[in-house]
């Protein structure tokens, strides 16, 4: 179990470093020493106000978004036995994007845009599940589900493109583009409190099911022969992952790449057992997105979208890990 201890150590250390780093940089840095004073209430001046109203909500949002996307990605990659699976496999991101883009297009207030994004993500996956159960017949249920997700995802992508063409190119189009790449720059404490219950509920479902989800990695026949009702188990897990992903996508926009890459990093570190992989992915996803968001705040004159940075930073890191970990287990 040394590998487990090492993996947890790396995950926790990464998150602590990312949190301290996120607090310590920016227009108003908060040093680790000050942090203690703020948390214990002895410091109540400007640093405390900045911390409670600006920095802490943003750090919390990054942790919530990163953890949810990475945990959902780990669950999907295991249960669909596909290393290319990500949380948006069944259309949750496309549905949430369509909802948000529609909201921006109609000039709705921020809360309504977020609500539409959340509803869109849930509705998209529900439609994919309904469609696949109608056309399933004798075929492989997993394959039909994934193909239905790809088909509906393409349709929603077309609808988003149409809205982008119709949108006002000076106000709405930049807002839409920025949203589609993801950002936490506008996340308020209220936004986080609105997204947190659904995201945490989804995470808890995935954590509770995590041992049994291992059985789905054996394949449909073997899992059923072991006494698993694979249809019901998959439905619970998809519901949990979708809930978490839709909630954080409504909060932060469609942040790509995390749900695909972070589970691979966690697997190289801690092995394929979902009992460890799901919580470890959540930990690493939180640390990774927090680091990326910190960079997004301070790197440029204007804030960079998260989706660009996750790809720019994640790709070399991922390739490096891939080269180093060639010998360890299956991908």
């Amino acid at each position, binding site marked *: 179990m040394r590998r487990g201890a090492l993996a947890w150590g790396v995950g926790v250390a990464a998150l602590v470093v990312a949190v301290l780093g996120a607090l310590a940089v920016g227009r108003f840095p908060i040093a680790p020493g000050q942090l203690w004073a703020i948390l214990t209430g002895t410091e109540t001046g400007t640093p405390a106000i900045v911390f409670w109203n600006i920095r802490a909500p943003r750090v919390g949002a990054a942790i919530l978004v990163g953890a949810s996307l990475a945990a959902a990605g780990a669950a999907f990659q295991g249960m669909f036995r596909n290393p290319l699976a990500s949380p948006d496999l069944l259309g949750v991101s496309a549905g949430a994007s369509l909802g948000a883009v529609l909201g921006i297009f109609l000039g709705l207030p921020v809360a309504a845009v977020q609500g539409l994004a959340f509803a869109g993500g849930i509705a998209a996956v529900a439609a994919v599940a309904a469609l696949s159960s109608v056309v399933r017949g004798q075929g492989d249920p997993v394959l039909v589900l994934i193909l239905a997700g790809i088909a509906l995802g393409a349709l929603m992508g077309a609808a988003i493109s149409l809205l982008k063409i119709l949108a006002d190119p000076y106000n709405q189009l930049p807002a839409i583009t920025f949203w589609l790449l993801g950002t936490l720059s506008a996340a308020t404490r209220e936004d986080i409190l609105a997204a947190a219950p659904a995201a945490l509920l989804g995470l808890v479902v995935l954590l509770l099911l995590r041992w049994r989800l291992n059985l789905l*990695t054996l394949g449909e*026949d*073997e899992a059923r*022969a*072991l006494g698993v009702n*694979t249809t019901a188990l998959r439905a619970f897990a998809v519901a949990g992952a979708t809930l978490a992903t839709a909630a954080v996508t409504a909060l932060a926009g469609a942040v790509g790449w995390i749900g695909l890459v972070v589970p691979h990093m966690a697997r190289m570190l801690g092995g394929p*057992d979902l009992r460890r992989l799901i919580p470890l992915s959540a930990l690493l996803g939180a640390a990774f997105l927090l680091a990326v968001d910190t960079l997004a705040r301070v790197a440029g004159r204007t804030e960079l979208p998260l989706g660009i940075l996750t790809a720019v930073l994640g790709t070399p890191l991922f390739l490096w890990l891939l080269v180093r970990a060639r010998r360890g*287990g*299956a991908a």
Partner: protein
Amino acid sequence: MTTLLAAQGLSVGHGRRVVAAGISFTLETGQVLSLLGPNGGGKTTLLRTLLGLIPALAGEVRLDAAPLASLSRREVAHRLAYVPQAAPGGFAYAAREVVAMGRAARLPLLAAPGARDLALAEAALDRLGISHLADRPVTELSGGERQLVLIARALVQDARCLVLDEPTASLDFGNQARVLREVRALAVRDGLAVLMTTHHPDHALLVADAAMLLHGGAMTGPMPPADLITPARLRAAYGVDAVVGALATPQGERLVCAPLVAPP
């Protein structure tokens, strides 16, 4: 002896396409029943039907006297354990964890294996003489070792009937003998009912109490292996000439089946 698995007038296939029909047999405690047949003859389709993974097209399967179609996945798993072929690949779980997965049907939905389940997994590994492999990733094991791990997984499932899909396929000579010895021991020592498919008629002669041959959409048998396995039937099913004859061994005389290769 109790009948644990019974098929009556069974037709198997996919959708409306019947692969084999008129299949009837019973499997009792302490018995090894061997299923022979060429590739594509419907062995796998029959196994999947017996496991309840695909519906029977006609006839009935009874598991411990209950109609298979009336049982939930969990109830089936309590009565019938499946040992798939030890295919390479998959995820790098430790052998102990793979064996513990056999407890799935005995655990509540949200539970993971506890100390008792892991102790059962250790005992099953020990029972098969591979406790030294417990911490090794299954992806690093040899085919024979992986097959024994999968048998251990079926044992902790605590079912009285065991179905093995070609347990000796892709194993070397020594591992084939070791796996066959365990299969025999499961029936004789543990009183399990064992159904095993195999490509080798000789393996049926070696360990089976009864054998049946699935070929051309119809089942021959079950009957004693020595009656079933004849050069004429093997010629019809596999298209090769074979000899079946008695060989004196340290354990007494036994029937041996070997193929004949025509000189080039």
